[in-house]
């Protein structure tokens, strides 16, 4: 592997050297990956898969025009470099505006607590088979299960005309274990999830979490649907993270702003987005998280980027291009899901910083409200966010009351951020299966973190 790493680095160095004069910017990425995955569905081991991929992506920038090529026939790499340059030449008619960075040379090795590649396939199957059995035996109302796991090892090379030449090894692993309970015509699922970039150990000793997910599925299938309407809402740390991601994170991605005069007004640094208790940041530095990385996919060192500080907008997530055009600093947020895609502005671990409230303080004044817990995912179109909680509880007279199902929350991003009126001190980092989708690139591993928060009012979908 060491030889391969060095060989490809040299190849990229030569290609960049040879062709960089023709371009304002030239970048070549290569990737080699191996993945194992398994899915139990009910009693069956539905699939056990092994995947190997290799390929590359070239981007050339000439006079503001990009020429790009992706390929997996590595023997023809130079022809794709030429193709990208030709394409860029053809459309470049303006000026290239790219943030300038210092070239970086690095060889980033893995630093693992437990390496999934040292385990035989059989051991992984056995581990997850045990969890699957545990779910299926947990309760008579549990009729099925879904247990999924994957691990992926990647070697990534990136070289560009700033002089950057990096090879990085990366590990990504994640999974979800879901219990499906059926009661008459209704069925409901509840799961527990995990993820890591440095430790297979996170998959062990999850029996307690699995037991709890089973109990939740059984309770949920008997629970009534939430009644739709507008409520004060308290959300748990996991949903808070998703809220930070959907309601604000996407808006702070530089490519949503950099070419729109209207958006530049909306997203002007210093604008008040929330009350002084609100702090939001996005970081690539969370060791062990699925969102951890030393460099982004443009070879820029990653960082912790403050986005909202004491309620005011202070930053955004940039690629070289968006930073260049906005005359701001790149933030190490340009990410590509694989060699098939270009790097674009993406989140890493998006967090709402801790506050000072306790959970009891948050709910004690709510006469009728909803406590929404964990998540089945979220979505945004910039102005409106929507997410689905895994379960909910009514809050009645300052107390947590009955469980309710089908809790979806929606609201206007700008209004809702200002309606956050209490932030808990119980900050939690969360890694989960799944990932973020944007521009055809999904699932990109991200993480979300935060404490409990209270929103004065949000629309809850229901019937």
């Amino acid at each position, binding site marked *: 592997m060491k030889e391969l790493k060095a060989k490809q680095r040299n190849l990229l160095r030569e290609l960049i050297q040879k062709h960089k004069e023709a371009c304002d910017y030239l970048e070549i990425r290569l990737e080699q990956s191996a993945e194992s995955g398994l899915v139990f569905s009910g009693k069956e081991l539905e699939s056990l898969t092994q995947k190997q991929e290799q390929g590359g992506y070239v981007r050339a920038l000439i006079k503001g025009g990009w020429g790009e090529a992706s390929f997996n026939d590595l023997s023809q790499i130079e022809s794709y470099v030429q193709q990208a340059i030709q394409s860029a030449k053809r459309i470049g008619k303006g000026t290239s505006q790219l943030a300038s960075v210092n070239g970086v040379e690095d060889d980033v090795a893995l630093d693992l607590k437990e390496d999934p590649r040292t385990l035989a396939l059989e051991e992984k199957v056995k581990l997850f088979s045990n969890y699957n059995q545990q779910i299926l035996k947990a309760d008579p109302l549990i009729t099925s299960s879904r247990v999924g796991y994957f691990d992926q090892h990647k070697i990534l090379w990136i070289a560009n005309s700033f002089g950057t030449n990096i090879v990085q090894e990366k590990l990504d692993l994640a999974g979800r274990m879901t219990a499906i309970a059926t009661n008459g015509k209704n069925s409901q699922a509840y799961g527990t999830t995990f993820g890591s970039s440095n430790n297979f150990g996170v998959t062990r000793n999850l029996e307690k979490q699995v037991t709890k997910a089973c109990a939740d599925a059984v309770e949920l299938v008997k629970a009534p649907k939430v009644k739709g309407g507008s409520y004060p809402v308290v959300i748990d740390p996991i949903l808070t993270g998703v809220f930070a991601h959907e309601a604000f994170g996407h808006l702070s991605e530089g490519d949503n702003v950099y070419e729109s005069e209207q958006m530049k007004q909306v997203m002007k640094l210093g604008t008040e987005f929330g009350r002084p208790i609100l702090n939001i940041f996005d970081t690539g530095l969370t060791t062990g998280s699925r969102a951890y990385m030393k460099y982004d996919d443009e070879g820029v060192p990653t960082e912790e980027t403050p986005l909202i500080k004491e309620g005011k907008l202070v930053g955004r997530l940039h690629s070289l291009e968006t930073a260049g055009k906005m005359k701001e600093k790149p933030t190490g947020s340009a990410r590509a899901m694989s060699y098939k895609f270009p790097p674009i502005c993406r989140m890493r671990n998006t967090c709402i910083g801790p506050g000072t409230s306790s959970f009891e303080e948050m709910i004690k004044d709510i006469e009728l409200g909803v406590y929404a817990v964990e998540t089945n995912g979220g979505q945004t179109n910039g102005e409106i966010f*929507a997410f689905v909680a895994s379960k909910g509880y009514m809050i009645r007279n300052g107390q947590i009351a009955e469980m309710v199902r089908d809790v979806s929350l929606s609201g206007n991003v700008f209004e809702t951020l200002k309606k956050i009126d209490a932030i808990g001190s119980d900050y939690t980092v969360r890694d989960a299966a799944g990932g973020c989708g944007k521009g055809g690139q999904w699932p990109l591993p991200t993480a979300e973190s935060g404490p409990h928060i209270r929103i004065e009012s949000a629309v809850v979908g229901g019937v």
Partner: protein
Amino acid sequence: MKKIIQKALKKGADQAELFVIESKDQGVLFENGTLKKIEGSQSQGGALRVLRNGKLGFATTTDFDSEDSLIDQAIAASEFGSPFKFDFAPNAEFKELIPFDPQIETFDEEQMLNIGSQAISHMKAYDANILSSCSIGKSIQTISVVTSNGCEESYDRSYFGFSLSGQLVEPGNFLENYDGIEQTRIDFDLGSYLSSVIQPFRQGRKNISISSGKYQVILTPRALSGLFLALEQGLNGNNVAKGISPLKDKHSQKVLDERINLYADGTLKGTASYAPFDDEGTPSQKNILFQNGVLKNYLLDLQSAEKLNMYPSGNAMRRNRLYMNRDYLELPSPSINSWVMDGGARQFDEIFLDVKEAVLVDQIMGLLMSCQVNGDFSGTISLGYHVKDGQVTGRVKDCMIAGNIYDLLSEVHLQEISQDQRWILGAHGGTHMLPTLFLKDIFLSTK
């Protein structure tokens, strides 16, 4: 390819199946009103499934020089699988369906740039404040399925994609819309997409607030394609076989309103899902799902068909679960190719004129997370309008719709189906031919 199958058998597989997709793509992208990039890609990938002692193993690769490792990995994976009883595709008769438009060869960057420039200038001319983006692309693909049971088939596919979007940001108001098409033929009518993308900018700049309650709801083809995610889960042969679909024991029974005729159709010439066979080598067909509201069939791949003792329906697809594009990295599973639904008696315009008060829903956000196998869904209306006396009065925001797809499509809620249908880019991938539905008594939650 045959060599890999034979080698797999020699290494211990009882049956083997190789799916290979090779693709050459070209495209141009206009972003925020300017020409941004030209891109090209070359890709090849293969997926091998083996059955050994009834156990299934799956492996994929992009590098066919390492075929031994592909085979070894698939065989290794088949050590642990659960026993399945099904066979890979046999040698079968295929209808002469050729999803290849020869014009694709000469459809070049110049033409793509031309279409894009026209689209962008049209948007700018309508309103310079609307930021528009447009992508045009083509692809030439070869898709092959070879099995140890005698299936040895391959077809070339041309593919043309166009999408256009516009975004307007005004104080307190974001308005976005998109439209486009994916198809195997090249020709298309740019004009119809231009007017479709612009429509909300004509009608949706004024916001109307409504209170929570029951409304008449008009679902456009695009909104309907989103809600059909819930229906697809119920029709999915795997969910039926597992016993978790509400349709599991409803075959040949009336489930929906008798005006509903719904198909999954892979035989419509020129459309994106037009192909001689599916991703397991089963011949494409017009799969009748509901006829006069009666459940006639499910979406079935080889495995679920075997379990249910039915015939595979040509609906096995290998696709990315979020973007629904074809992906050899995924195992085949029952999936919708194109929803096709019959229209009703009256034209949309005629029915619309009779509307007293309604909410017209065109885009719903959050369905991917909320749709459940039991048919329940819940989502945020991200593009919708208030309608009064046959006229759009403005845009409705901060409004959620929730319910159950089987109820929506029953006599309880279904009022009328428009006669006119339209090919649309599905809210969650694919292209579909759907009418507009007029529904009554739908509960909407608002702030």
